[in-house]
C-alpha cells in the first residue's frame, strides 16, 4: 500500500509554458489510462528519469466539474496506482439541437464552432483520402488495416479548395449519390413476415400453437363457440408483415444521422443559397424528414450498440449501398465526438500536414517519394500511423550525390528520441516536449543547419491567447539556459478560432538576448490552403532559404 502511495506521490501534474497539462510519472510506469472511457494516454516524452503523458480535454460537463481517475500501469500489465485529475479545457462540444440564434449568440459558441469546423474538415478530408469518390481515380491500397496514400495525391485532396460552391462534405456526397436509393428503401422497405399471437374470428384461424391451445383451454365454456365468446374470436398464430428488421433499423439510424449532418452543414453554409451543393443538401433534408414522417421506418426502433452488417446489408443491391455510406457517416460522427476530446492532437496533425504542404512546394531537385499510412478511425486524434513516410524533403542547391546535399525532416513528438539517438537533433530538443520539430541537416556530413521546436495549441480565450503569445519567448529563454546551439529556435502555432476567415496566418517574431528566434503563428481555423501560409515561419527559422521559396513545383 505504501508503494502504491509512493508512486502516486511521485506523480506530478505540470503545465507546459503553452498551458498544456502533462502528467509526469516515474519511469517504471508503462501506461496511463483514463478509467472512463478506458483510453490510454499518449506519451509525450520518455526519459530515464520520468515519463510525460498528455491529458485530454474534457469531453463532458461532469468531467469539467469533478476529477477523473487515471490508472497507472507497470510493465507487467498491472495497475499500480490511481491518480485523480481535474481536466482543463473549458470548451464543450456544441449541441446540435440548438437553434441558429443560440449558436451565433455568444462568443464562446463561435469558438466552439470554429474548433468543430476545423475538426470536421480534418476528419472529412482524411475520409476523402481513405474512401475517395469515384472520380478520383484508382482505388487506394490497404495493408495491415491502413490505407496507403501517396502524398502527392493526398495533399491535393486534403487542401483542395472547394468552398466556392459550398464545401464538399460527406453529407453532400450522400445527398448526391445515395438519395435515390435511400428514397426507394424508405418508400418500400424490406419487410419480413412475423408470427404473432392475436385473436381472430375462429372461422379465419389457420394455425394454433401450444400457447394458443392453453389459452383456449382456460376460456370458460364447453364448446369452441362458447369459448370464443360473443365476439367469436380465439387466440391463434397469424403472420404479419413487419418492417422491423436489422437492416431497416440501420436505415432509420442512417436517416436520423443524415438529418443531423444536413442540419450542421446548412448551419455552416446555409447562407449560400445559390450554391448547388447547399441546395441539394437542403432538398435532401426535406426528403429525409418526409420519409421519416410517412414511411414505415418511423415505427422501427434504432439499432442497439454498433450494428454489424447482415447478409442483406452486405449483398442486397439497395441496402449494400446504404450500408457503405452509413458506415462512413457513423464513423465520422463518432470520430468527431472522440476528436473533440483529443482536439489538440488533431490540431497538431493538421499543422503537420500544413507544414508538409509548404515544404513540398519548396522542394528542390528530385522530389522525395512520401506516403501516408492512414487509419480509418482516429487514434486519440491522429489518423496518421507512426510508420507514415512523411517528413523528408530535399532542399538547397546541392545534388543528392553531393556530400553537402541538404534535407529537411519534419519530426513528430514520438520520433524525437530516436532522431536524437541518430544525431539528427540535439538531445535537449528531444526532451523539450515539442509537438513537432523541423530540422534542416546535411546527413552525410552530420551537420544540423537549423532546427525549430514547434508547439501547437488552441487559443480559446483571452487568457490562453496571452499565455501562448508569451510562451514562445519563454521557451526560447529556457532553451538559452541549456547548451543548445543558437540555430535551434522555437515556434508556437496557435489555432485561433476568432481569426476571420481569409485573413491567413499572423506571424510575429522575437529574438532573445542570445539571438535565438521565437515565433508566434496564429492560424485561422477556417481551413484551406490559403490559411496555411507558413513561409515566413520556415524562412525566419532558416529551414528554407529565401531563394528556395520560389522553387515551387
Amino acid at each position: 500500500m505504501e508503494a502504491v502511495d509512493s508512486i502516486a506521490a511521485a506523480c506530478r501534474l505540470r503545465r507546459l509554458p503553452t498551458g498544456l497539462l502533462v502528467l509526469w510519472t516515474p519511469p517504471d510506469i508503462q501506461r496511463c489510462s483514463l478509467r472512463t472511457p478506458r483510453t490510454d494516454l499518449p506519451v509525450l516524452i520518455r526519459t530515464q528519469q520520468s515519463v510525460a503523458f498528455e491529458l485530454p480535454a474534457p469531453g463532458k460537463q461532469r468531467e469539467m466539474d469533478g476529477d477523473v481517475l487515471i490508472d497507472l500501469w507497470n510493465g507487467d500489465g498491472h495497475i499500480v496506482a490511481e491518480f485523480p485529475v481535474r481536466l482543463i479545457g473549458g470548451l464543450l462540444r456544441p449541441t446540435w439541437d440548438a437553434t441558429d440564434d443560440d449558436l451565433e449568440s455568444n462568443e464562446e459558441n463561435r469558438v466552439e464552432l470554429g474548433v468543430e469546423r476545423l475538426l470536421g474538415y480534418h476528419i472529412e478530408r482524411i475520409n476523402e483520402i481513405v474512401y475517395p469518390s469515384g472520380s478520383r481515380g484508382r482505388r487506394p491500397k490497404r495493408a495491415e488495416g491502413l490505407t496507403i496514400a501517396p502524398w502527392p495525391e493526398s495533399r491535393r485532396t486534403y487542401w483542395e479548395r472547394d468552398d466556392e460552391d459550398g464545401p464538399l462534405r460527406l453529407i453532400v456526397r450522400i445527398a448526391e449519390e445515395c438519395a435515390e436509393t435511400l428514397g426507394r428503401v424508405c418508400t418500400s422497405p424490406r419487410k419480413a413476415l412475423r408470427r404473432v399471437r392475436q385473436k381472430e374470428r375462429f372461422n379465419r384461424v389457420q394455425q394454433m400453437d401450444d400457447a394458443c391451445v392453453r389459452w383456449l383451454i382456460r376460456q370458460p365454456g364447453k364448446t369452441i363457440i362458447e369459448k370464443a365468446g360473443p365476439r367469436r374470436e380465439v387466440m391463434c398464430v397469424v403472420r404479419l408483415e413487419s418492417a422491423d428488421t436489422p437492416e431497416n433499423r440501420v436505415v432509420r439510424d442512417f436517416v436520423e444521422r443524415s438529418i443531423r449532418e444536413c442540419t450542421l452543414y446548412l448551419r455552416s453554409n446555409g447562407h449560400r443559397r445559390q450554391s448547388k451543393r447547399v441546395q441539394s443538401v437542403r432538398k435532401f433534408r426535406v426528403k429525409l424528414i418526409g420519409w421519416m414522417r410517412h414511411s414505415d421506418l418511423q415505427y422501427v426502433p434504432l439499432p442497439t450498440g454498433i450494428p454489424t452488417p447482415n447478409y442483406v446489408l452486405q449483398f442486397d443491391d439497395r441496402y449494400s449501398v446504404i450500408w457503405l455510406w452509413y458506415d462512413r457517416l457513423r464513423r465520422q460522427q463518432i470520430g468527431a465526438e472522440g476528436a473533440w476530446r483529443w482536439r489538440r492532437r488533431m490540431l497538431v496533425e493538421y499543422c503537420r500536414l500544413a507544414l508538409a504542404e509548404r515544404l513540398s512546394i519548396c522542394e528542390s531537385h528530385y522530389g522525395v517519394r512520401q506516403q501516408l499510412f492512414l487509419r480509418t478511425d482516429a487514434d486519440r486524434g491522429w489518423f496518421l500511423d507512426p510508420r507514415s513516410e512523411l517528413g523528408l524533403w530535399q532542399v538547397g542547391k546541392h545534388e543528392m550525390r553531393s556530400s553537402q546535399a541538404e534535407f529537411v525532416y519534419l519530426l513528430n513528438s514520438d520520433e524525437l528520441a530516436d532522431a536524437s539517438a541518430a544525431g539528427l537533433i540535439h538531445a535537449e530538443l528531444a526532451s523539450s516536449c515539442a509537438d513537432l520539430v523541423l530540422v534542416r541537416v546535411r546527413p552525410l556530413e552530420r551537420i544540423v543547419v537549423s532546427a525549430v521546436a514547434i508547439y501547437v495549441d488552441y487559443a480559446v480565450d483571452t487568457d490562453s491567447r496571452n499565455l501562448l503569445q508569451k510562451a514562445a519567448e519563454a521557451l526560447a529563454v529556457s532553451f538559452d539556459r541549456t547548451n543548445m546551439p543558437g540555430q535551434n529556435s522555437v515556434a508556437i502555432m496557435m489555432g485561433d478560432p476568432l481569426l476571420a476567415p481569409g485573413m491567413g496566418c499572423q506571424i510575429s517574431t522575437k529574438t532573445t538576448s542570445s539571438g535565438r528566434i521565437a515565433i508566434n503563428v496564429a492560424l485561422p481555423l477556417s481551413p484551406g490552403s490559403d490559411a496555411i501560409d507558413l513561409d515566413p515561419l520556415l524562412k525566419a527559422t532558416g529551414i528554407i532559404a529565401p531563394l528556395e521559396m520560389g522553387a515551387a513545383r
Partner: protein
Amino acid sequence: MMRNEEPHSCGVSIAATGVVIANANGELLNVPAHCPPASLLPRLAGEPIGTTLGDRMDPRGTGLPWPPSARTDPENGTARLPSPIAWLGLEQDDREWSWRPDPIKPARTLRSSEALASLVDSALRFHGNSDSRLGDSVALVVPNSLTLDQQERLLRAMKLRGMGGAMLLWRPVAAVLSWLEHHQAKLTLESKKQGESVGYVLALHLGLESFEADLLEIVSWWDKGVQWFLPARSLPRIPTLYELGLRAVETAVMGQKSGGQFDSWYLMWSTSWLADTLVKRSTSSEWIVQEITRSQQACSLTRLRESLGGKMKRPSRKDLAMGVERGLDPWCQYVRSVIGDHRLRGVVVTGELCQLQSNSGSLVDRLVESTAKGSPSECLLVDHDTPIGASLLAQGAATFLDRHLKNLPTYLDTLPAIETLVMTKKGEPHWQDLVDRSDPYVLGGRTQKFIPADLNLSVRGEEKYLNLTVAQEGHDTVREVRRDFQQSIKSDTDVRLQVEIVAGQGNPRVEVLPDDSAVFDHQSLYLDWNRAKDTGRTRAQAADDIPRIYPPLQPRVSSVSRWSGVSWLMASVVNDFNQRRYGATSDQLEQLKDILREKDPDHAGKKEPQHATTVDSEGNLALHATSKAVFEQFIAALDERFATGRTEPPKELLLRVLGYCSAQSPRMMEYMRTQLSALHRMNAAMLTAALVAYGNCLRDPQDIGRFAQAMAKNSQPSSDWMRALYRILCYRQEAAEVIPSAICEQITRACFERIREQIDQEGRASIIYRHGSMCIAYLLRRRRFEDGYMDPKGKLACDIKAFFERTIKGMASRQIECLGGFVGLPDVTRLIIKYIDRQGKGWIQMVD
C-alpha cells in the same frame, strides 16, 4: 490480323544503371530514374512491392540516418534491393532478402525473382497510359546461365504481376540479334544452305553483377524462301565471372567517400553517382579499370577453373571474395582458347562497364585485344546508349519477340538435359532423357514436343500418385516430381509422358498419358514442377536408392598390403621352380595358399565392406603394387608345372593356389574344362580344390553353363559346390545368362533343401546356410535376363521366404545358433527376402 490489332511487344533489359524498354521498331522508351533501379521491400504486410523507378527519391533503404526506414545495417538489412544484387540472388536459388523495419515485428521478405518482376512491371507502367497494351507481350533479357528452375521462378513472378505473355531471352542471344541488325548486310553476300554455319560472333557482357562471354554460331536458315541468319546458342562453355565489376565499383566508391559503409551504399544505390561515373569517364572510372585489371598475375586459369568447380555453377561467396583478386587475364585466356580456330565474324559488347576508359585505353579495347584478336574491327559493336549497356539488349529482345509473334524464325537454341530415373528391362536404373537432343539446335520460342520411348513407366493398381525422379541441368542434386491422381487407379496401367518444352522458357510441361485414357477419367494430368522436392541426393545416390530385383555384382578387390607379404614368397617359388627344386616348394605353396586366401581386414571395416585379397577376382594385382612381373612369372611357372602331371607339388595344391589367384592359366583352364563332365569321379580333396578353382577362375559362359548343369545333377550339393557357384555369379556379370531358368530353379531348390535340412535338423546356421543362401540370392541375377524368374508370389519363392522368416525368428529367439562368422545373419537374410520380393537394396554380405 489487322495491324492495329496486333499485340504490342517490347524488349526489356534491366541494367544497374537503368531499365530500358525497346518497342518492336527498336525505339527506346525512356524510363525515368534518378538512381540505379532497385526494388523496395514492403514495410507493411500486404503492401505492394515498390521500385525506385521514377523521378522521385524513395527514402527507403537509401542509407541515410533518417527516417528509420532509410537505414541500412547488417543486423536489420535494408529495404532496397538493387537490380545487380537481385540478379545475383536469382542465380543463388532465388535468394530471399529480408528487412526488419520494426524490431518487434517480423522481418519483411522479398525474393529476387519478385524484385526483378516488379522492376519490369514498374517500368512498363510508366508507359501504360500512352500505350496500354505494351505489357501484353514482354521479352526480358536474362543471364546466360539461368537454370530451368530459375527461369521458371522469374516467369512465375512476372505472371503474378500480370505479365502472362512474358518471355525470357538469353543475354548473348539478344546482343547478337542486335549485332545482326547492324551487320547482317555483310553476311547476305554469302549464300549458304539450310543449317550451314557462316561464322561466330563473340558476345561479351561487362555487367556489374557478372562478366559473361559466349561464342554464338551464326547459322543460315531458310524460311518460306527467305534467308535468315540466326544466332545459335549452345550450352554455356565459358565460366561467368560473378561480382567482379560490383566489387570493383564498391572499391571505387569507397575511394570517393570515407564516411563508412552506409555512405557508400547511399552514394552507389541512392544517387546518380554510378551512371554519372560510368558515362563521364571521371577519375572514378579509372579507379574501376585499375581495380578490375589489378593483380592480373595473381592466378592462373587452373585456379580459376578450380574455384568454379569446372562447371557453369554459381560459386560460393568465399570464392567470390577471392574473385576480386583474380583479375581478368586468366578469364580472357580461357575465352581465347574457346574461340580457338573458329571463324570470328564480329564482337558485340554490352554491360554497364563497356564504356570504361582509363589513361591506358578503354576496357573494351583491352578485352577485345586479349580475347578476339584478329577479328574484323569494323564488326565490333559496343553499347553506347544511355542508360549504358542495356540498349542493345533491349532492342535484341524486342526483335526476338516481334519475330516470334509474327511466327518468323528468331534464334536457335540448345535444349537442356532433363533426365528421369527409369528401370531398364535388365532391372538396372538408368537416366533416360526426357527431351530429344539429337538435333543440336531447335528454334527459340517454339514449342518442342516429345514422347520419350523406353521409359517403362507404369502405375500400379490402387496407387494414388506417380512419382518421378528427375535430374536437371544446373542442379547437382535430383528432384522428385509427384503427380497426385484424383482417385486411386483401379488396375495396373502403363503410362507415357508427353513433354513440351520451349527452350529458355522455364520447366517443360509434362503430361502423363495412360494407355487407356479412361483411367484418368479422360482428364489431362500434368506434372507439377512447383511442388518438386529436392531430394538432396546426387544422381548416383538416387540410382543406388532404387530397389533392385537382384543383388549387384560383388567382385573381390586386390589389396596392396597383402601383396607386400606375398611377393617375396612368390619370387622364392619361382626361383625354386627355375632350379627344379619342386619338392621344396610345397611348403611355400601351402603357405602361399593360406596367405592368398586371407582377406584384408582394412577393407572389411569400411562402410561398404568389400572382400579384398592379394589378387582381385579378375586375376589382377592392385594398381599400385610393385614387382608385378614376379606375379606373372609365378602364374606362368605354376601353369607350366600343372601341365606336366607330376605329383610334386600336388595338383590340388596348385589348383587351390591358382584358384585364389583367379588366374587365367591356360593349362589349368583346359584341365578344368575336361574335368567338368567327370567331377563326380574326383576324390574329395581334389574336388574341393577344383571347386575353389572353378569358383574363382571360371569365366567363359559356356564353361559356367556346363558347371551349373553339373551342379544341378547333384541333389545334395556340398557347401563347396554352393560357394563355387555363388562366387561365379557374384564375380561374373553375364554368368546368369547362360544358366537356364529351369537349372537355376533346380539348383535353388537343392540349395534350399540343404539349408532347410541344416536348420531343421541341426538347429544351427553354419557355413552351409551361408553358402546356400548366397547361392539362392545370386541366382536371382537370372532376372536380369528373364524378368519372370522366381516370381515373388510363386510357390518356391513363398516357401523360401516363409522359411527365411521362420529362421530369422529362430535366430532372434536364439533357438537357431549362428556359426561361422560375425555377419548379422538375420539382417542379411531379411535382405535376401527383399531381393526375392524385388525390393532389394545394397550388397549381400553373408560371409566375413
